[in-house]
């Protein structure tokens, strides 16, 4: 809500400004044109081409022929695709929930003042910036069933050794642990930004009224940072759906196809089997899944803002 108000006043001021200086209005389009050309070449063209490829029978090195909706129909009856969709949704929901929880907790801690806060926050942000492949490599070593440090740590507290990414049952939760480790800081940063915009006064009067810490969090902090939580949720969902580096570098979708998400299946189809027609169809459907989920979340966000405005 605090994000909307300045925009609105900015727009009205701009409108007034425009009506006064209409004849002097400078031309800003030349600034944008080069970027439009580049975006057209590396973003719009690939999309148009992908759509076209997806209605063709086309394996690299063989001749191409028009296929109509064939690839899409094949997709609908492809068990491996449906399996990968389930993996994607499982992976995504876990990789959104865990960072959201830990990120919010971390933000509440880092919003307070304490010794070495800046240094600790710096270290906390590092996983997000570290090169994913390097991260995946070290985690693979830590997950090693015999020599890995994680099983040793588990043994210290009496938990039996796990097979982590080497077992079909535990591979997705293990990958989610890495994703959570890496992306909790982004949630923390967004929520921290929200906490910084929370005014002090309501808490002072709540304190006087005898509200305890949990009540203050539940009825004051949480509603005020709700828009920021929503933004974090949307960004995290998009990123988790698209996750590739960590999964590919650690398991390539294995063992078997136990951790094969749509993105990995897309990669395998296009660049292992060179079936680019079918791969393009997967890309199109995958994109639709991402846009649909983001759209649902955006609608929720608008609703939460609306409720927010009503509440005010």
């Amino acid at each position, binding site marked *: 809500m605090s994000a909307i108000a300045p925009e609105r006043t900015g727009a009205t001021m*701009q409108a007034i400004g425009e009506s006064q200086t209409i004849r002097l209005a400078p031309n800003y389009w030349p600034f944008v044109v080069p970027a439009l050309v580049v975006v057209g070449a590396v973003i719009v063209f*690939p999309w148009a081409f992908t759509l076209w490829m997806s209605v063709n029978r086309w394996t690299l090195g063989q001749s191409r022929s028009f296929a109509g909706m064939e690839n899409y129909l094949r997709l609908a009856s492809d068990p491996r695709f449906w399996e990968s969709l389930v993996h994607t949704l499982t992976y995504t929901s876990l990789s959104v929930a865990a960072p959201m929880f830990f990120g919010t907790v971390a933000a509440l801690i880092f919003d307070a003042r304490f010794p070495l806060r800046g240094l600790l926050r710096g270290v906390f942000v590092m996983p997000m*910036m570290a090169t994913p492949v390097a991260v995946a490599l070290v985690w693979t070593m830590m997950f090693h069933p015999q020599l890995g440090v994680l099983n040793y740590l588990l043994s210290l507290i009496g938990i039996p050794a796990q097979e982590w990414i080497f077992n079909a049952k535990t591979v997705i939760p293990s990958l989610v642990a890495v994703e959570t480790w890496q992306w909790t800081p982004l949630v923390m940063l967004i929520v921290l930004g929200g906490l910084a915009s929370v005014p002090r006064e309501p808490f002072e009067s709540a304190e006087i009224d005898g509200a305890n810490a949990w009540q203050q969090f539940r009825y004051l902090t949480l509603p005020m940072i709700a828009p920021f939580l929503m933004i974090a949720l949307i960004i995290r969902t998009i990123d988790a759906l698209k996750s590739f*580096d960590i999964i590919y570098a650690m398991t390539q979708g294995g063992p078997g196809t136990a951790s094969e998400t749509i993105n990995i299946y897309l990669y395998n189809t296009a660049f292992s089997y060179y079936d680019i027609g079918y791969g393009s169809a997967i890309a199109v459907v995958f994109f639709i899944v991402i846009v649909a989920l983001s759209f649902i979340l955006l609608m929720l966000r608008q609703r939460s803002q609306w409720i927010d405005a009503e509440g005010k």
Partner: protein
Amino acid sequence: MSSRLLNQIGLFFAALVIVSPAILFFLWMISLSLKFEIDNGAYPPILIPERFAWSNYVKVFEENNFLLYLWNSVLVTGTATLLALLIGVPAGYGIARLKAERSAVVIMIARMTPGLSYLIPLFLLFQWIGILGTLWPQIIIHLVVTVPIVVWVMIGYFETTPMELEEAANIDGASSWQVFRLVALPIAKPGIVVAFILSVIFSWNNFVFGVVLASRETRTLPVAVYNMLSYEQVSWGPLAAAALVVTLPVLVLTMFAQKQIVAGLTAGAVKGG
């Protein structure tokens, strides 16, 4: 007073707990990279070995052409970032001044699009023009990452810079280009620094484009490290050393430019919804 002190100590330890996975991970990474094979295979695991295996780092550069791959990474990231700044800073300015909020949607869609879906068509395109053996395919496709970041950060930045000076210069008869170059650009320097840092980091870390487009001579560092894992002897010390070499520049940048990175990411994120 003492209860406040207790409170601070409590918060410090809570923070330590939540940061500990990051601390332990990086400590373990360093430890792995400095141990001989025998110490890396020891059970229970050893954190600090008696003898440090500095030779692991020497091996990385001697045996795997790492200097070439480092240079490739510098070229790809450097060129893709400079091009993105050249194109993206004016674009961010134009979009902010035009109040063209729809163009922000294009960038949002770029963010939603999985990198792989650019790869199939651009791979074919690069094959047809015959530039597949060079670094250009990777530089061009990295623009998919760097241009949206730069435009995004710069829109946010130019929206907050004051209009009055620009309007005054405009009334004094300066052309749009002069206003941009002499008035808007100098004020936006901190924003450009943020855009530069974020663009460098995300381009440097990129893996998916290289894994498809790079040949033996054009690998970037993340791809080179991944290939070590899959094809070379699986010897943990040199592997961990290689992983550390790849990610060290980014981590150092993160430590030194923490403020700018936080500002850029949260600005981008908060606008991102």
